[in-house]
């Protein structure tokens, strides 16, 4: 089919879009960005727009709930996992573990005997997730690609099993009555209205994009790219590969923790079944499909993975099957994803392994 053929060609219409944007005069760039940001803040209202609404609205579930329960989380997770897999080239299959740590931290500190306000729970979740990232990374980042993948997978499962086996984490029944963000002014974080959650979440997304862009264009981003492209050569060029890999893990984990924390406070209750292995693989599919290493690519990927099963009923019960197959198809036909990272022809890291 021509659709797939088009996918397989090494076209770069997306890059041209990016380049054309970069070529605009400063004022134009700012106004265009402001316009886009405003439009995206208003995403919960999109189903009311004539043609766009028909395309985007999700039959059977309220769009704004899909937006805040799933799309938002997947975008955040995709951004975080992209730091680990896309920037630094480390295949992490247990990312759901960081997501779970963030969610459970928020759950435990806001619903137990000693309750903290939500405003304290979020940073605490981030810190706990980062600690988890460092704990996981320190012994395992010495391992090469395949082994790292298996071990991180184990980590995700260990987190889930631990939550399942520990009463203070709610055991199999989980934790409920998780606090919501405090309502102030026109923003009421209640059960009925999902929109304030989106405003909060999208703001967080914008912040993360800002921080990650900074990182990408600094010596840190360069170090990650060097590690990804040829770790041994990078080390011989003076890059402290272990330190930067660990930072990638920590930052990725922090973002995962944020996503988990927001998820917990939005849905109000969590249990270990929310954090299964398949979710890790779905997260990976979001990054790979969207474009490993490309921030806007993985945002698109996160959106697609979360939205398509809700928009098309044929996908809803089969989403894991679908995205499993999608992973294979992408690897075979278009490993760089829908929106490739800048400079990427082949996509996934080409690690040099020959003897010098």
């Amino acid at each position, binding site marked *: 089919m021509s659709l797939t053929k088009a996918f397989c060609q090494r076209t770069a219409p997306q890059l041209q879009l990016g380049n054309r944007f970069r070529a605009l005069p400063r004022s134009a760039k700012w106004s265009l960005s402001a316009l886009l940001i405003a439009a995206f803040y208003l995403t919960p209202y999109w189903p009311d727009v004539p043609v766009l609404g028909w395309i985007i609205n999700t039959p059977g579930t309220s769009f704004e709930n899909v937006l805040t329960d799933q799309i938002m989380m997947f975008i955040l997770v995709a951004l975080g996992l992209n730091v680990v897999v896309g920037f630094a080239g480390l295949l992490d299959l247990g990312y759901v573990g960081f997501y779970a740590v963030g969610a459970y931290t928020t759950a435990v500190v806001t619903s137990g005997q000693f309750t903290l306000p939500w405003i304290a729970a979020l940073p605490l979740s981030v810190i706990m997730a980062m600690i988890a990232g460092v704990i996981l990374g320190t012994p395992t980042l010495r391992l090469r690609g395949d082994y790292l993948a298996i071990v991180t997978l184990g980590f995700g499962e260990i987190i889930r099993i631990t939550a399942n086996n520990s009463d203070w984490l709610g055991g199999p029944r989980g934790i409920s009555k998780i606090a919501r963000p405090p309502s102030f002014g026109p923003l009421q974080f209640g059960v009925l209205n999902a929109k304030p959650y989106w405003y909060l979440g999208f703001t967080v997304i914008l912040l993360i994009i800002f921080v990650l862009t900074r990182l990408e264009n600094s010596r840190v981003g360069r170090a990650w790219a060097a590690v990804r492209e040829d770790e041994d050569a990078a080390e011989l060029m003076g890059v402290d590969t272990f330190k930067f890999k660990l930072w990638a893990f920590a930052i990725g984990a922090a973002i995962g923790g944020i996503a988990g924390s927001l998820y917990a406070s939005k849905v109000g209750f969590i249990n270990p079944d929310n954090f299964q292995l398949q979710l890790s693989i779905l997260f990976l599919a979001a990054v790979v499909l969207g474009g490993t290493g490309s921030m806007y690519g993985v945002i698109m990927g996160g959106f697609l993975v979360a939205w398509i099963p809700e928009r098309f009923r044929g996908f809803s019960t089969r989403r894991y099957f679908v995205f499993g*197959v999608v992973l294979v198809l992408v690897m075979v036909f278009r490993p760089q994803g829908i929106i490739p990272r800048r400079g990427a022809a082949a996509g996934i890291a080409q690690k040099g392994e020959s003897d010098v």
Partner: protein
Amino acid sequence: MSHWLIYRTFWDLTVSGIVLGLIYALVALGYTMVYGVLRLINFAHSEIFMVGTFGVLISLTKVFGISLFDGGQYPYRSGFVLVAILVGSIVAAMVVSGAGAVVLERTAYRPLRGAGDTYGAVVLAFLTGLIASFLFSDDIMTNLAIAAVITGPVAFGYVRIFRRGRQAPRLAFLISAIGSSMAMAEAVATWGPDARSVYNTPRVLEKKVLFNFLGADIRIDYVIVAIGAVLMMTSLLLFVNRTRLGRGIRAVAQDAETARILGVNVNSVILVTFLLGGAMAGGAAMMFTLVYDQTRFNIGFLLGVKSFTAAVLGGIGNIKGALLGGIVLGLAENYGSSIFGGQWKDVIAFVVLLTVLMFRPTGILGESLGKARV
């Protein structure tokens, strides 16, 4: 107090640990051989095992027509009929798993080696069509129909793309493996009659206790597993060490490029490696259902990780290592869960894996891997 319990049940744990370990070892063989030949962790091998268990289930219930309960009792058989059924079920499992492994190789790995062929293109085209059909309908019959129609032209296009084949980087293989693994497990979960619940397999063998050894009951199913596993592994070793094809496998495992130059058909060797690994997993699948009488869509995952751990523990790429690793892991799990509690059993394997990879990545018998080469 737990020390006393361990003492009382020590031989029990040992015996069942060895049996469990042998099953791990059989599955570990698939991981270790594919790794030896392709330097790839075949993440989807766990689903090859799972598919084999369903092969057993289908052969028992549909082909042999045995129902789960015969008027409130287990459908025990005996004598010649029993032997025929057991042999039939293991053959079915080996065929299903072997075929699954071959399809997997052609579809998910061969295109990434730049050697994609028509069979792989057809399977991929069919899957593409199936997924595309989900955009329009959620009725499985419609989906299959649309997929069947689309497969032809799409496969044609895929074959042409394959001609420009290029070797993909290592990470791509692993991602493809993960995707295949999930796709296979979820296919069973979505379209199997019992979805995500446990499927019971008919118990045709009455699990009599044959004799008692130092306080441990030696059941007949344990004996069958032990004998069967040893037989299978011995045959595999003989094949790899004595036959021409086996020599080809060892050559490719040591140096694929040189083997190719010397005339070894590397693609055939890889295919046979997958086939053998799949057959071993099929054997393991039959033995698993024999002992545990059940299966599930995700039975592969946990067992797969444990078997992989066993392979690494024994030394990845080393066939005898897989046997040793399997038994050690089986024992460790049993002893460990009696000390720490059953709910932590699965964590033990992960901990073992992490420990081995960090402190002795060579495994007990194997060679060193993962050193930086500059």
